[in-house]
Structure formats: C-alpha cells, structure tokens
C-alpha cells in the first residue's frame, strides 16, 4: 500500500473565476436590477468608496429545474427524530401552508432563503454592469485625444542648455574622449623624439668631428621639439566648452485622468423634497460614472436661490433656504471656481445642473450668456436635468433658453425627469453610446 502527500498550495487559486463570470452573465438581468436597488438606497460615499457591493437577487430561476414531487398530494410517510409526546394514532392538524411542521425537508441547505440570494460583487464587476454600454460623450474623448496636459520627460542630452541642467557625468565623459583624442598623436610624436634622443645620447663618439657636431645639433633640436610637444600636451584643457552636455527635456502630452464635477442645484422654495431626492440620485449616478472613468474626481457643490454658494455635501442636500431664483448666479460661481482652482489643462470639467426650471424671467438672458460663453468653452460636458412631477419638457422658464444653447453646442445635453423611475433611463440617455 502506498501513499503520497502532495503540496498543492502553490497551484492556482481562482479556478472558479470562469464559473463565477458565467454565473454573473447568466443572471445579468437580475443583477442589473439589484444594482439599481443599491443605487436607489445607498449613500453616495458608500457606493463610491466601498470595496464590495452587496446585492440581492431573487433566488427563483437560479436553480436548474428537474422533475420533482410537489410539496403535497398523495400519501407520504416521514420519519423524524426527537419525539416528545406523540403517541401512535395521534392526529395532528395539518400545519399552515409552508409551516415549519413538516420541518426542514425543503429547507435551504445553506441557510440562505430560497427566495433571495445575496452576494457581493467586486467594485469592478459592479461598475462594469452598471455602466455597461455607457460612455463619455464623444466630445470628451476628443479632448482627451487633443491632450491638454503636458509632462516633461527626459529625452537624451544636448550641447546647450541651462547651467542647472548640466550633466556632469556626461560632460566628463566627453572631455575624456576629447583629451584622449587630442593627446595621442602628440604622445606618439613625443615617444618618437624621446626614443631618437635616447639613441643619440647613448651613442659612442664617431671620431668624426663633423658627424659629432651634427649629432649635438640634432640633440638640441630634439630637446626643443620635446619641450614643445610637452607644452602642447599640457595645453589640452581638462574640460572644454565643447565637452559640456546638458540634460534634454521634452514636453510629452499625457491624457487627463482627473475630473471635477460641479453639482448645481436650485434650492429655492419651489424645489421640494421630491425634487431634491431626484437631484440626489442623479448626482450619485454622475459621480459613480466619473469615478469609473477617471482616477481622481473632485466635486464642487453649488446651491443657489438668489445667490449662489459653495457648500459641502451634507449642506447641499439637507439645509433649507428660501427665496427667488437667479440661475446665472450659480453659473457665475462655477466659472469663478474653475478659474481659481481647476485649470482646464489638467481637469475634465463636468457641469450638472438640476432644477425645477424656475428662474427669474429677467435672468434668463444672463444665464444663457454665462453658460454659452463662459462655462461651455471650459467644460467637457454640461447636463441639465429638469425635475418636475407635472410639467412636460418645454413648459418651464429655463427650458426654452437652454434649448437654444444646446442647439449651438454639442457639449450640452438636457432632459426631464417626471418620475423616480426615469432617473436611470435619463442618465443612460445622456451618456449612451453615440453613433459617430
């Protein structure tokens, strides 16, 4: 009899990944619905930041059907343990439908109710499902392609440049090369002269005065030549201007990966709880979507009635103020904030205004002016969503003027939400994939 003990821990985990994906694909519709529920009930921060998304889907239809007996009908005996006080022949009233009396027979094996199945999606799975078939408007993609942001990148060396960018190592290397190059012919000459000189000096007298004199002259000549060459060698500079090398930098475009969203909401008296609730949900979607597309997302909350004010999230949704409505004030504030804090080169700017469409009649012109000339040129996208339970599109103060702006700009989209169920469809409409 033999046995083997094998360490399998190094083998791949995640054998179930394929199966998991297939399951999610299978229940896509249910998961999509569940994801919407999460959006509806969750808090913005939780949804954006939490790692796993707990979702619940109906358990029905998850199991593969097979032939089975119905729960009742016919005659059936069941033996159970733990009798307390039953006696043979006892007659017991039939338990209510689904009552525990028949106990545990069809009960869920895993302790999870058959009618609901809850599990966690990873953030990636969640967002993939949620934003499937959605994309950033074309305009933005173009902008990314145009590459507004630049980055300096090293790009070799150059012979001129700022002293601060002097590359010493590279310069010394150049100098050394130059020195070797310039010295070697001279050194060769020097060697030759020295060898000849040595030979002449060591030679015995020839007993020929004429010849001896010739040698003496040659020696003097050689000594002079040697001195000259030595001087020349010494004269080669240790570091010459021509040796200097500077670090070269190049401007390289980088795609922008951060975005700022401006949430603009009308909090004048005409905006009730319902309208605010709609607004909240919409902003939430917007935020999630931006997080899905960008590495970093800032949010600026601007609420306005007659005056606009930048506030934090809590105040944005909860504090109450009343007054008339001047929309242009909010747009002006948005413009200022962009100029102060969000340079267009490095930020994708998204505007999202939610309002019931009321505005001072006199302000419409201003609002259109600011939106058209100040905001849109700086923004990637501006979405206007009108929330109203009663009115159809086009009946509000703002709708008409905004529509004229939209007609002139591809960066603007607008829509109306009459009912809570429309939030998600409207959002999808604003960001759906467009045919190019």
């Amino acid at each position, binding site marked *: 009899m033999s046995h083997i003990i094998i360490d399998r821990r190094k083998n791949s985990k995640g054998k179930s990944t394929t199966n998991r994906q297939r*399951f999610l694909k299978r229940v896509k519709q249910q998961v999509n619905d569940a994801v919407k529920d999460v959006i509806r009930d969750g808090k913005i921060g939780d949804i954006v930041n939490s790692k796993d998304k707990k979702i619940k889907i109906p358990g029905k239809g998850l199991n593969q059907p097979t032939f089975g007996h119905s729960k009742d009908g016919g005659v059936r005996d069941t033996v159970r343990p*733990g009798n307390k006080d039953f006696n043979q022949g006892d007659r017991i009233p039939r338990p209510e439908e689904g009552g525990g009396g028949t106990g545990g027979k069809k009960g869920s094996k895993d302790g999870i109710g058959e009618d609901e199945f809850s599990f966690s999606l990873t953030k990636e799975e969640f967002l993939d499902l949620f934003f499937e078939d959605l994309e950033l408007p074309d305009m933005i993609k173009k902008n990314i392609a145009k590459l507004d942001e630049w980055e300096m990148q090293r790009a070799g060396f150059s012979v001129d440049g700022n002293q601060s960018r002097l590359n010493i190592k590279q310069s010394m290397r150049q100098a050394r090369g130059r020195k070797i190059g310039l010295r070697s012919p001279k050194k060769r000459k020097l060697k030759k002269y020295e060898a000849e000189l040595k030979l002449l000096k060591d030679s015995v007298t020839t007993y020929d005065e004429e010849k001896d004199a010739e040698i003496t002259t040659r020696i003097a000549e050689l000594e002079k030549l040697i001195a000259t060459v030595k001087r020349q060698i010494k004269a080669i500079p240790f570091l010459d201007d021509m040796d200097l090398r500077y670090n070269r930098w190049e401007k390289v475009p980088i795609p922008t990966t951060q975005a700022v969203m401006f949430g603009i909401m009308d909090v004048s008296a005409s905006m009730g709880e319902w309208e605010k609730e709609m607004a909240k949900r919409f902003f939430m979607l917007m935020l999630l979507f931006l997080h899905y597309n960008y590495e970093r997302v800032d949010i600026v909350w601007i609420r306005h009635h007659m005056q606009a004010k930048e506030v934090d999230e809590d105040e944005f949704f909860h504090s109450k103020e009343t007054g008339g409505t001047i929309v242009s004030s909010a747009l002006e504030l948005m413009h200022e904030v962009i100029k102060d804090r969000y340079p267009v080169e490095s930020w994708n700017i998204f505007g999202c205004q939610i309002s019931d469409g009321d505005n001072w009649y006199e302000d419409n012109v201003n609002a259109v002016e600011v939106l058209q000339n100040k905001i849109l040129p700086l923004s990637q996208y501006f979405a206007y969503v009108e929330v109203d339970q009663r009115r159809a599109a086009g009946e509000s103060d703002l709708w008409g003027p905004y529509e004229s702006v939209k007609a002139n700009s591809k960066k603007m989209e607008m829509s109306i939400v009459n009912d809570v169920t429309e939030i998600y469809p409207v959002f999808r409409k604003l960001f759906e994939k467009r045919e190019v």
Partner: protein
Amino acid sequence: MIKVDSGQEWTFDKLNEIYAEIETIAKEKYDLNVYPNHLEVISSEQMLDAYSAVGLPIFYSHWTFGEQFIRELEAYRRGRMGLAYEIVINSSPCIAYLMEENTMMMQTLVIAHASFGHNTFFKNNYLFKQWTDAEGIIDYLKYAKKYIRKCEDRYGVNEVEAVLDAAHSLQVYGVDKYRRPSRISAATEEKNRKDRDAYVQQNLNVLWSTIPKGDTDVADVEEHFPSEPQENILYFIEKNAPRLDEWKREVIRIVRKISQYFHPQRQLQLMNEGCATFFHYKIMHDLYDKGIMTDGAMMEFLHSHTGVVKQPDFNHPHFSGINPYALGWAMYKDIERISMEPTEEDIAWFHNQDWVGNGDYIKNIKWAIENFKDESFIQQFLSPKIIRDFKLFNVRDDEDDPKLEVTGIHNTKGYKNIRDALAKQYNIGYKVPDIQVYDVDKWGDRSMTLRHYMVDGKPLDRESTVDTLRYISFLWGYDVKIDSVDENDEIRVGYQNYDQDTALDIFLEDN
C-alpha cells in the same frame, strides 16, 4: 514516537509519520482494504474552488458551479459555515484534501476519516464496485473538460451552455438503474467517439426513414416506439433525437457518464458517512491508547466529533432532516454492540441471524459495507435500540385526510412501521419520481410522451415539470409531454412543454 497535541501545527514530516501510524492500525487491527492514498494539502481558497465543482478536482465550466462557488464563499465569509474538514474523491488513487489551516489533530482526523474510512467504503461497497470506475474517472473528467472546451471554442459558450443546462436538468434520468455501465477511459473515449458518431447517424437514418418498406410495414404505425418504456431519458435522446448535432450528443453523453459516477453516491450517503465516522472514531481512540494523541488533542477531537454527529430534534431550529453522520455512526456502533453482546430484544428482533452475537464485529461490519445500500442497510440493521435512542416517529400525510396521523413511534408496536418507513425514505426510487420515455409519435409530429409512474399518488411539481419539459423539448427537437399515471395505469395529470396557459391539465375524477 510522534505526539499529536491540541492546537499543534502540522508539518509534512509529521503527516507522514501519523499516516504510517494510522495505516498500521487500519491494516493490522481492522484489516481495511483501501485504494492507494493521495493526500493533497490545499489552501482554504482552493477548498472553496473544489466545493463548487461538486468536489471533483477537474470539471468543465458551467454557470451553476459559479453560483455554487458564490454561495459557499458568502457563507464562509459570514462565518456561517466552517469549511468542511475534507473532500475525498472516489478514485484510485483515492484523493483527499487536507486544508492548510487545519491543526495537526484535524489532519489526523481527516486522514483517518477520508483516507481510510471513506476509502475502504469506496473500494468495497457493491454499488461503487459496479458503477464507479475509480481508475478511470479522473482521466474521463479530463477528457470531458477538454471536449467541452473544444465545443465552446467552435460553437460558442452560449450554445454549449444551452445543451448543458438541458442535460443537467435530466442528469438523474441519465442512468440505467439495472445495467452495469462499461468502463470509461479518456484514451479510448476519443477514438470510440468517432466510431459512435458514425454508428448513431446510420442508426438514425434507419429509425427516421419515412420510406415505406412494403406492405408488411403498415402495422408499424400501431407499434410503440420505444417498444418498452425507457428509464434512461438522456440515453434515449442521445441515441434517437432526430435532429441533434453530433457534438450535442457527445455533450449529453458526458453529462450522463458523470451522472452515472454519482449514482451510487446518492444511495449510499448514510452508509458512507457512517462508515468513515465509525472508523475515524475507532482509530482516534487507538492512537490515544498508543499514547500518540495527548489528552488535549483528544478533547479537541471529541469536541469536533460531537459537533459532526449531532442530531437536532424535529422541532429544533437547526433541524434539517436526519443527519447521516449521526444515524450512520450510531448504526455501525450498534452492529458492533449486537455482534459482541446482543440483548434478548436484539436476538428476537433479528430472528437470531448468523451475525448476531458471533463476536466478530469487524467481519460483520465489512459484510455490511460490501453488500448493502442505505435502504437495505436500514431494513437489515436498524434495531429497536436505535429507534428509541433517536426517538423516531412516523407521521403520515394523506391528502384525503384533513389531519396528519402519527402511525408509529419508538415503542414495540411502532418499530417495524418506523423501520420500513425510514428504509423507504432512503429508497432513491421513492425520492426521485419514476419517469420514463413511453412513446414517440414516429409517424406523426415526432412528439415524445413521457410517463410518470406515480407512487403513493404523489403528483409532480407543476412549475418545475413544465420548465424541465422545455429543456427536454430543446434536446429532442419536438414537443414533449408527460402523463402521470397511477397504479392502475390511468392517466391522472398531464403537462406539455409548450405554452403554459394551454397546458393539458386534466384531473380525472375518481370513479
């Protein structure tokens, strides 16, 4: 000598040592006949992976395994469930998984339980011997995985999934209950498949030929096809469906073959778990007697063992049927007791059978392991003492009776009633509706009629039946209906696969 202490970490050396100790006990004291053992150390994540593919080390991909995985993972994360100590595969060599998180005591327990308890049962039980080709299964699973992957590449994941879905819903009906399956092997499988394809096609052509063969054939129209009802629905479809691509036939065959592998398991849970538990309990005590297990380790073991064999009462919130570990272990222990020291009651109850009081409990237990399945095991060995210990009682639910009736309890009058009812409860033929292919309208619309032979008047569940019929119809290619017939062969209920609203749904009045 090796010592196993409570909470002690394991090492590979210690595993080898303890394996040797256990093997000595298993061979010398209990003379256990086992397959060679493979012990594989895995992480808890890998354990979860293994769970989700019905415990098999290799399996093709399917969404239901993904669902299973997610369920296990959620339960595990919430701490609702500890991972099972072990998974053991009925193969030769017998593969058992040891989780790396287990303590040394736990690994010892798993080796005793799985590598000897289950292993000996796998190797010696008559149903496993007949049905399960332990040498071939791993190879076959490899072949299946490869073949299905190939189909997915060629025909698309969705196409393959549709066939698997349909075949899975019939997997219990992919077994010849009375015919011994042939051996399986991956190597010959690939070659055989090609021959099979050719043969099936030829056969189909004859089968579905509408060309008249001459005057003598007129009578054919009246003839039943199949001539006898067929219980293996998947097999019938695989061989006879008129318009099924070859690869789909092969996928059905794969599901069928794997289902066949599990067929004995469905009828042996009580006996198998009982056997493994009985021997681990014995072996752990032997190790303790030898001084290998310390008192602390023994406490740790007993704590875990007690949890496993706990049987909650019927009205307890944790009750979910009879615990096979509890009843199984109790019954094996009881065989030991009756072999050694039978009471008057035992002798009377078992009609003084040979084994009662013969003093050789190991021989008797081996005889039980080799020759019984859950149903017959209970019929043969359930003693009044066990019925009393478990306080078993039987409740009859008759649809014609407005009330439930207690027909037997743990007393002299009730023992036989309870033994018979409990045995029936473990009869797979009673649990799973008996459904067979009854007729195919060969000369007409080619629709298939299934027949459900009702037992004790139990009807089918309407919703799942209609859903399942749709799957069958998808494979068969034509409409499928099912009739439930009672003991007198009278049709009581019928369902069809198409359009639920107009489903044939006739309740015949009793007359």
